[in-house]
């Protein structure tokens, strides 16, 4: 009975118990330690939810990579390993400065704390800067998301895209045009250019046949690329749309020419996953930077010390998580082969 009353002393009698308390102690907690532990618990649980959120993307990555290993091997070569590696180092370094900052706040070393927080923030800036350079290169070379990706192929909408055209990067501006329109206008307006237009049209028609069934006339398996209905494998053994392609017995690098038509359809998927993963991670870096800026401002006001360092500690945990996720992303995306 007495221990119950004791434990609720702060709860029950704020006027008596509240005066000599730590100013950071919220009214509904008994002790600073209880408050600190609550924050810590909540932060860990929150980090768990973050991991689960990325987990969905890792799942999508695993499924597509498992089903199209050669596509991933081919497409990942668009990514710049050097920049990725530098970014990894930048993040690890900033994680180190962050951990050091947490320690400084616990020891009440306010000046080093401010410097280390600033350094961590700069690490974030550096990371995002390098990321921007990488994204810009993707944009320039038409391997961005959505319609800014030359490998995208709208097969079911009757708008095929000649992904295997032999144009160089410089010519790709024209290639982004939907070929169905090219073809139609070629028929009407430029009969002189029949040969070239016909060729690209033929390729487009072929491509769209792969995805869309030839209506009213048998079925073309988009995965096997064969019109042979008997060859359609049981769906459960080999889910369509995710069917594992034939892995050619090559030992060198994967080239576009090594991919089958069905595999080429999934090159775009790699870029989508890449941009979703790194984009979501980038948003987390930005949030982390905002949080660091916020505790830097609080550190300027000398708020932290051996009795109160919870915010620094929690932001530190968050920043380590952001770092950790990148440490998984880097090899999964950049170091496939």
């Amino acid at each position, binding site marked *: *009975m007495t*221990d*119950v*009353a*004791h*434990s*609720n002393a702060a*709860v*029950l*009698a*704020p*006027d*008596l118990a509240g005066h000599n308390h730590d100013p950071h102690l*919220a*009214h*509904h*907690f008994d002790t600073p330690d*209880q408050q600190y*532990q*609550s924050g810590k*618990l*909540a932060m860990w*649980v*929150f980090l*768990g*939810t*973050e991991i*689960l*959120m*990325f*987990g*969905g*993307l890792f*799942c*999508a990555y695993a*499924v597509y990579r498992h089903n199209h290993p050669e596509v991933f091997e081919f497409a990942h070569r668009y990514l710049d390993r050097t920049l990725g590696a530098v970014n990894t180092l930048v993040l690890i370094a900033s994680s180190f400065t962050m951990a050091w900052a947490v320690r400084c706040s616990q020891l009440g070393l306010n000046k080093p704390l401010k410097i280390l927080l600033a350094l961590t923030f700069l690490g974030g800036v550096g990371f995002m800067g390098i990321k921007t350079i990488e994204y810009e290169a993707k944009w320039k070379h038409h391997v961005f*998301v*959505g*319609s800014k990706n030359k490998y*995208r*192929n*709208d*097969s*079911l*909408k009757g708008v095929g895209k000649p992904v295997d055209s032999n144009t160089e990067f410089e010519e790709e501006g024209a290639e982004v045009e939907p070929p169905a329109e090219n073809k139609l206008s070629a028929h009407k307006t430029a009969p002189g250019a029949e040969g070239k237009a016909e060729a690209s049209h033929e390729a487009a028609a072929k491509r769209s046949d792969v*995805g869309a069934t030839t209506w009213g006339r048998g079925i073309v398996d988009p995965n096997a690329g064969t019109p042979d209905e008997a060859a359609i494998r049981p*769906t*459960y053994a080999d*889910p369509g*749309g*995710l069917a594992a392609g034939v892995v050619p017995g090559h030992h060198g690098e994967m080239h576009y020419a090594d991919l089958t038509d069905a595999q080429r*359809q*999934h090159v*775009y*998927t790699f870029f*989508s*996953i890449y*941009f*979703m993963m790194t984009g*979501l991670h980038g948003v987390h870096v930005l949030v982390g930077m905002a949080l660091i800026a916020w505790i830097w401002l609080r550190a300027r006001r000398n708020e932290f010390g051996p009795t109160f360092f919870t915010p620094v500690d929690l932001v530190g945990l968050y920043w380590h998580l952001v770092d950790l996720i990148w440490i998984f992303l880097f090899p999964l995306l950049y170091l496939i082969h």
Partner: protein
Amino acid sequence: MSAITGPIPFGVQDTAHGGGHAPGDNYLNHSRGIKSWLLTLDHKRIGLMYMIGILSAFALGGFFAISLRTVLWNPGPARGASAASANAYMDLYNHLFTLHGVVMVFLFIIPAVPAIFGNFVLPLMLGAKDVAFPRLNLLSFYLWCGGALFFSYVLLSGVMESAFGIKWPGGFGLDTGWTFYTPYSTSKAAGAVVPATLGAFILGFSSILTGLNFVATIHMLRPKGMSWFRMPLMLWALYATSIIQILATPVLAITLLLLAAERALGIGIFDPALGGDPVMYQHFFWFYSHPAVYIMVLPAMGVISELMVTFSRKHIFGYNFIAASSIAIALLGFLVWGHHMFVSGQSPLANAIFSLLTFAVAIPSAIKVFNWLATLYKGDIRLKTPMLYALGFVYLFTIGGLTGLFLGALSVDVHLTNTIFIVAHFHYVMMGSTLFAFLGGMYYWWPKMFGRMCNENWGRLAFLIILVGFNLTFFPQFIAGSLGMPRRYATYPIQFIGYHRSATFGAYIMATGLIIAGLNLLHGMLRGRKAPANPWGGSTLEWQTPSPPPHDNFSTTPGPVGDPYDLHGIVEDKKTGEWYRLPDAGKPRTGPAH
């Protein structure tokens, strides 16, 4: 405690411990002005604000339900209707059922019990002053409002387009079904899919943060003496719910993000036209949305456990089994999502495993029902309005659970899935059960919230009307569904007209009952008889504080914290009907339940 002999009334101020509350000072009138509500950190006020929002959402979803049932009164558009008007007729229905589902699922039934009762009674039951993170709690509420704003945009865009022909960006209304199945939602639907998914995304974060807050509160703010197995079962249920919210909602968040990106940019993860896999979307979606079903029903079960004890005047039967079954349902609930996809073409092996796990979830549910029955046995049962809802819950939940057996059995499910048998099944579980528990909880804690009692006779009448209306609405759908009536059909073959008209008729009856129940609550809040601190003779800690509670929840030491359902020593004054406790009430004694 001073040595008092003889009965002690509940909720008296204990000045000896410095409880410095003026008489009549409570959380409702502690501070005044709209700002003191909008910026409040008091969990009770936040709970009430949730209640206003969530009940508005319920009214809106109910309006859609009544409208769509009205459309289904006739089997189709009038004879000789032009193609355009027939399409408009079907589109209207499609928008109505989608909006009904989205509003009810995301805005009403997922947050209903945790956000209203969880917020209001969880700290009270713990004898705590507040949840662990009051600011985060307020943020959750505003996130809920933000999500609701997005849904309002969806609704208004539909109204603008159809009534005034004004196009808003993003599409109009919503016609995808609440499941947003790709590729229809990403490439074909006319509805405002992106605003709707972003709204659900934001609501997801509201849900995550609420769950986080409750977990931290239950872990850190339990008073000394309240071990895990001395927590009220409502807290076990809320804890299990919070686990699901924390573990499943992030997956929904990423899924909806991908869906919005698919719709806006065409990223090709789910759209088969771009090389994506629509079945993967279903896996992702149901990984959240099946556990979400338990987010809806678990806290409702917690409410029922409380009601059963208080109104049977008897200790809960099988406390440990009920508590453990909550956790078992929460964990098993994560492993059964594939049973929504038995006919989607996933492998028979996966189907077999998901089917087995689905049946495994049936066991803890059955355990709960039997334990509640055993709680009634040899009790002293008082059929107050909340208890009627609890008994109604048991009846409807039993039907909902038993019809689940049909759907868990693989071969039978092939025939029944995607028919209105499913619609009937999940309405029995989600609406019949959760709504009844919700209403029971409203009538149970209403005196605590507002300090006034509701009219018993009107409450009982409303219960009867709702019960009859509910069964008229949904029972015929079991039969029509197994006869082959698919769900989400705007038009239907003439042989189903009897079932559909019964359902529509029942929906009107149910709406009448709900309106009566709501008016009764409102009347009770404004004009009802003053409520004592413990109007029902409840044994959990929230009944020890005055009604309505003071700003800081407790002016006297709550406790002693022993067995939460020990009714020994809580006695009724036979003349006045007031409840008192004897000095030794609730003292920890030797017994099997802790």
